[in-house]
């Protein structure tokens, strides 16, 4: 059964991008696809909004970019996590888990 597509909660896009890059460098299109596929099509990134988020992450030093050749031999900009980015991902994941746990508790008791 088709599931309704949901918009990403604001502020979580950065965390999802960092998580997508944890396994290795990806270009923007691959990041969008990775997020969508990993969530089994539940989360759908507004593709254009990905790039301002990537530029902000690069400005914060959490990702770094490098031009390379894509799988179809086109020039593509690949992003990879920096050491600071890995630390930030750990912090954001921990925060998210605490938040999700707290919300779950409220839902169970309310």
């Amino acid at each position, binding site marked *: 059964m088709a599931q309704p597509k949901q918009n990403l909660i604001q502020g979580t896009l950065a965390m999802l991008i960092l998580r997508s890059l944890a396994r290795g460098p990806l*270009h*923007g*299109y691959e990041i*969008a696809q990775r997020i969508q596929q990993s969530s089994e099509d539940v989360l759908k990134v*507004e*593709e*254009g*909004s990905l*790039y*301002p988020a990537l*530029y*902000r992450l*690069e*400005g914060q*030093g959490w990702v*770094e970019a490098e*031009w390379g050749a*894509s*799988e*179809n031999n*086109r*020039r*593509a*900009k690949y992003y990879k996590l920096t050491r600071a980015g890995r630390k930030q991902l750990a912090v954001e994941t921990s925060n998210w888990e605490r938040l999700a746990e707290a919300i779950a508790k409220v839902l169970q008791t309310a």
Partner: protein
Amino acid sequence: MTIIKSILRRLGATRQSQSAGREIDEELRFHVEMRARDNIADGLSPEDAVADAMRRFGDFDQIRDVCEEIRKERLAGSMKAIKGCAWVILGCGLTLKMSSNIVSAVGDFLILIALLWRLLIHLRETQPDRRRVLAFEPPPPSVIHTIGDLSVSGFTENTPKPVPTYDKNGRTPVERLISDESSDGGVK
């Protein structure tokens, strides 16, 4: 080490500033083209594939402007930090020069470095960007929706149009893509 890395990154940001505008366009166009390519592989016609890719992407011009703005803010921050470093070196040089004769030569050297640093920053800020003349204009959505050849979309009347990459059979890249798809049984 982190401070050194940070300075190197900032220096890198200023070095890349001139070509970054073009690279934003290239990066965004790559995304749209990849989506269009996948759409074609899923069975859409080239026109529908490009239209869908553009729709999914959103307002191309606006997104490019936002990216450009973020990049400029980062660059301004980098320049500020680099200027700050020049003043710190100058301060150290003057302090050493005044403190004793032994380290006076080191002070002179640092003052010279700081002045050269400032001069380079000044030259960089005042030098016209020669590459801007060759700047690649962003693709207006109307052009993208109507043009059939993805590899030349994005060129406008202000920039010289390249010779489309027709092959010996007179096919455009999109036509080649469709042809390859039918012969290979799908685009990977």
